[in-house]
């Protein structure tokens, strides 16, 4: 039972890494808190649901479509609100309030358009029968979701460390002012990072019906807390630390569900508060305290 919990925890850890990664990228580059992150994830879920229901499109293809569309949508959102925010006196605080408003708008529009009933995609779409792994039988949809998450995280790594734009992105993360002074087009780099950030949420959303169960327009708020727990555990503003945060969170969640199932819902909240209070730099971070 313990090994089963740890293995499924690793699977979910990879998935939760994907859930938090976009939020952390946006925070790292822009120092703003995208409280609508969970709602972009919800939109990804509904995109996958409708593409599957109407056209029988495989979630993997839906993920590609979501990636393209979300990056394209992210750019105008960035230019519409973020530059105005960044000149404000307390941009972090204002960003929370503004993106909270945006999350309400998205949730309301989704509820008006799709209704509030729960939607799901049958798990057999991602392969039939359980997969055996180290003597554990796991639903193949979980393995698929975890594999896609791992690929997406690897792609973000390659983008940040192997491309020119990625190098510029990391420069902006280290210091916005110095990047500006070196002649980097900070707004262009940030806008692309914002687009990628919400696209990652969208891709996580595509697989949410398989990993988290049925989806509703109101799911965003819970996702936000989980995503925050993941990125705070794995050091804010450091996208790759998110992997550690995701895995700690995934294994913690599975252990709670195995041994203390009635209290499992408390985990993200308590983890978040405890880490913020006792190790605000994250479990493995060594950066100075920003919180």
């Amino acid at each position, binding site marked *: 039972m313990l090994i089963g919990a740890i293995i499924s925890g690793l699977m979910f850890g990879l998935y939760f890494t994907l859930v938090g990664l976009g939020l952390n990228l946006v925070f790292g580059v822009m120092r703003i*808190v995208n409280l609508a992150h969970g709602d972009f994830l919800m939109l990804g879920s509904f995109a996958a649901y409708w593409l599957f229901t109407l056209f029988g499109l495989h979630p993997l293809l839906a993920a590609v479509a979501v990636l393209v569309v979300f990056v394209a949508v992210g750019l105008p959102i960035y230019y519409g*609100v973020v530059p*105005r*925010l960044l000149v*404000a006196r*307390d941009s*972090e*605080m*204002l*960003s*929370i*309030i*503004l993106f*909270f*408003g*945006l*999350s*309400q*708008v*998205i*949730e*309301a*529009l989704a*509820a*008006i358009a799709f209704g509030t009933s729960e939607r799901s995609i049958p798990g057999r779409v991602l392969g039939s029968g359980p997969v055996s792994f180290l003597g554990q039988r796991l639903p193949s949809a979980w393995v698929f979701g975890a594999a896609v998450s791992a690929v997406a995280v690897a792609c973000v790594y390659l983008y940040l460390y192997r491309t020119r734009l990625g190098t510029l992105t990391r420069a902006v993360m280290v210091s916005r002012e110095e990047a500006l002074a070196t002649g980097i087009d900070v707004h262009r780099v940030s806008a692309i990072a914002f687009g990628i950030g919400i696209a990652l949420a969208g891709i996580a959303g595509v697989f949410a019906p398989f990993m988290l169960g049925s989806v509703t327009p109101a799911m965003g*708020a819970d996702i936000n*807390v989980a995503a*925050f*727990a993941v990125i705070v555990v794995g050091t804010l503003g450091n996208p790759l630390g998110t992997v550690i945060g995701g895995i700690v969170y995934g294994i913690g969640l599975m252990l709670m569900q195995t041994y203390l199932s*009635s*209290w499992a*819902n*408390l985990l*993200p*909240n*308590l983890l*978040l*508060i405890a880490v*913020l*209070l006792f190790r*605000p730099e994250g479990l493995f971070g060594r950066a100075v305290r920003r*919180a």
Partner: protein
Amino acid sequence: MRDARSVSGLRRVFGDLLLAGVVVAVMAVAPSVYSNQLLLFNFVMFLTLSQGLNVIYGFTGYLPFGYVGFFGAGAYGFALAVMHLHAPPLAAMAVGAAAALVLAVILTPLFRLSGAYFAIANLAAAQAVYEIVSNPALEDITKGPYGVSLSGVFAPETSYAVSVAILAGTLLLVVWLRNSRFGLSLRAIKEDPISAAMAGVAVVRGRTIAWLCSALIAGLVGGAFAWQISVFYPETAFSAQFSIFAVVFTLFGGAATLTGPLLGVFILYGIYNTIGITVPQYFQLIYGTLIVALVLFLPNGLVSLLTKRGIRVP
């Protein structure tokens, strides 16, 4: 010079008190004119909650996104005292207020976090309290997710009167904060905590007092809410809607003023009750858009339209 200043100071205090008195008087006589008492109670509740949030957000800049945690603690403190101790309602309200204060004391370390982190941690804390209260494992104590029924103490007129009294106390507190040395020191901390500390302002003490006052107000309102409706579920008492509305109403009117949150409640909650009940999504859409527009174009709320022109608003 000194006299002139104190005369204009007195005039300002008088203006603030007049506004507070008019609002309390209107809400006190309203039930004899208008029959939907539950709706009036909701108005009083949101007027008080918005001002309670104003105490901590307007005067210290810390935004408690999980403000409903104190409200829910007050409601459940009231319910537990009635169910298990068979306490009379007023004593049960004291228990609810104490529960909110205890929660606030437990959460005081969150002030080590700066703005955005404080807001998120506070939200997580409110959800954690909800998860504990609604947990089926605690059914013997809190009735878990199945809700509580306090029909034995149901007294809508009395609980309405008590809620108006809480509103009066809260408005007085805000008037005092706006016109006292202590309130001024809080705003100094909000502007620049380091300079304030160097000027001899007790930063930690000031914030903590404002925090406890704010939590106490929410706890008292929560107790009055439990008393007024007498049958409720954990997801009612801990509904994120309470925090959201209090934040939106305060922002809309303008924080750190007496008028702002009042305007926010009367205008927005008034609109909500004419259009919102049938299709809540439309109201959610409207206030979501409002928040975005406010942050971008009017971050200091409606009253800033006047204060920017040098007109003093109570």
